[in-house]
């Protein structure tokens, strides 16, 4: 049973328990959000003892070398002394809320202006802090050299801690704390002829809206297919903007998809799940570059199917919007 030392106190870690679970069980508050090793909110550093490689997956090489790790996926193999990552590595900064508007019945568009220069790539994500310490991740739909503000698409979930707060209590003019950017789901220049497939469900469109416009702005010449899916046509958004982009660019094809046929079914909406519609239209994905964002089940299943359809694993970029079932 490894012992975790934090703030000079030793805590016994049970078999199969993560550092986050161990410390939380003993009443030590450690910030966390996804609890799946994605958002890096629970970033800690091993002062003594090495974290297992699995707890460092996705971290920058420089952070790995300094024994930073994510507490929520760290099942320690040995005794460790740990500290919380400092603000210098987590890049916590202030941002002003510039605008808030509705994209559809339950998705809000938020524009933020960071107080300091913020170097990011379209499609990465930030962690948004509520004043009481609740943290959630939101993807960046904006494109650095094109858009002045950071743009978020926030889906309001019934009873959602962060999203209902964003709807009810976050107003233009307010200052919020953000951290990031995090993630590797973004457009990489080079290979401008490579065909690109973008598949997103719900607000999974946020990073894709960024990636798409970034790729076009950087002169991507290969075909870009976007399949955006929602439960119904009412859940789709940015439809007119995407159709306009389709008009303006010969190499961009937009396929909105809805699981259920609605009475209000617009012309041109495919009545099929976005991932299935994509696979039906593009059965051979050999040499394609693929971005999958949104519902974690869709992302996991589609990743495997895209690989089986011929895509190379190194060409598949994913952003599963994982959430903790035990979220506070």
């Amino acid at each position, binding site marked *: 049973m490894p012992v975790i030392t934090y703030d000079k106190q030793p805590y016994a870690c049970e078999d199969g328990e993560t550092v986050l679970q161990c410390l939380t069980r003993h009443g030590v508050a450690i910030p966390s959000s996804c609890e799946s090793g994605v958002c890096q909110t629970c970033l800690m550093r091993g002062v003594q003892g090495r974290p297992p490689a*699995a707890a460092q*997956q996705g971290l920058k090489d420089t952070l790995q070398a300094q024994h930073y790790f994510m507490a929520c996926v760290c099942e320690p193999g040995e005794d460790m002394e740990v500290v919380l990552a400092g603000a210098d590595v987590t890049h916590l900064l202030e941002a002003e809320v510039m605008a808030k508007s509705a994209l559809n019945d339950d998705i809000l568009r938020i524009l933020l202006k960071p107080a300091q220069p913020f170097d990011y790539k379209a499609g990465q994500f930030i962690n948004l802090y509520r004043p009481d310490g609740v943290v959630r991740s939101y993807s960046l739909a904006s494109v650095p050299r094109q858009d002045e503000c950071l743009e978020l698409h926030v889906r309001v979930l019934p009873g959602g801690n962060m999203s209902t707060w964003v709807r009810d209590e976050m107003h233009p003019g307010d200052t919020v704390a953000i951290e990031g950017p995090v993630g590797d789901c973004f457009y990489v220049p080079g290979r401008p002829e490579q065909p690109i497939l973008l598949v997103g469900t719900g607000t999974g469109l946020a990073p894709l809206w960024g990636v798409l416009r970034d790729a076009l702005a950087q002169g991507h010449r290969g075909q870009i297919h976007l399949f955006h899916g929602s439960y119904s046509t009412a859940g789709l958004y940015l439809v007119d903007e995407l159709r306009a982009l389709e008009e303006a660019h010969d190499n961009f094809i937009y396929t909105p998809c809805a699981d259920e046929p609605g009475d209000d079914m617009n012309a041109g909406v495919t009545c099929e799940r976005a991932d299935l519609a994509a696979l039906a239209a593009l059965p051979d994905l050999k040499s394609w570059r693929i971005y999958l964002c949104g519902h974690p089940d869709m992302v*996991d299943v589609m*990743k*495997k199917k895209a*690989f*089986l359809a*011929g895509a*190379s*694993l190194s060409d598949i970029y994913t952003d599963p919007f994982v959430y903790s079932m035990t979220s506070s």
Partner: protein
Amino acid sequence: MTQSLYDKIGGEAAVNAAVDIFYRKVLADDRINGFFEGVDMEKQAAKQKAFLTFAFGGPNNYTGKDMREGHAHLVERGLNDSHVDAVIEDLGATLKELNVPDELIAEVAAIAESVRDDVLGR
């Protein structure tokens, strides 16, 4: 100096070329894909690389005991000779696709054969 099997096949570059093809075959093979249902595909692919490096006679520190322990949880789930046959078959088909000569494929199959009993915990 005679070239090792690993060098003849093409070393690490050959492993990298083979891993996507082999992993795709394994996932598509209903006889064995049940054993490979991990969510984390990158981790699974890394393990396939370890397997290929071993089978190509490349640098590794695996012992028979490691093979036993590494597959014990699969033997509990019913891993048997027919599954080893399937893996060796998929491996052969992968190498054929990469235009590896038959006599080298036979050597690779022989290395995989050599740990059959360890893998099956006998």
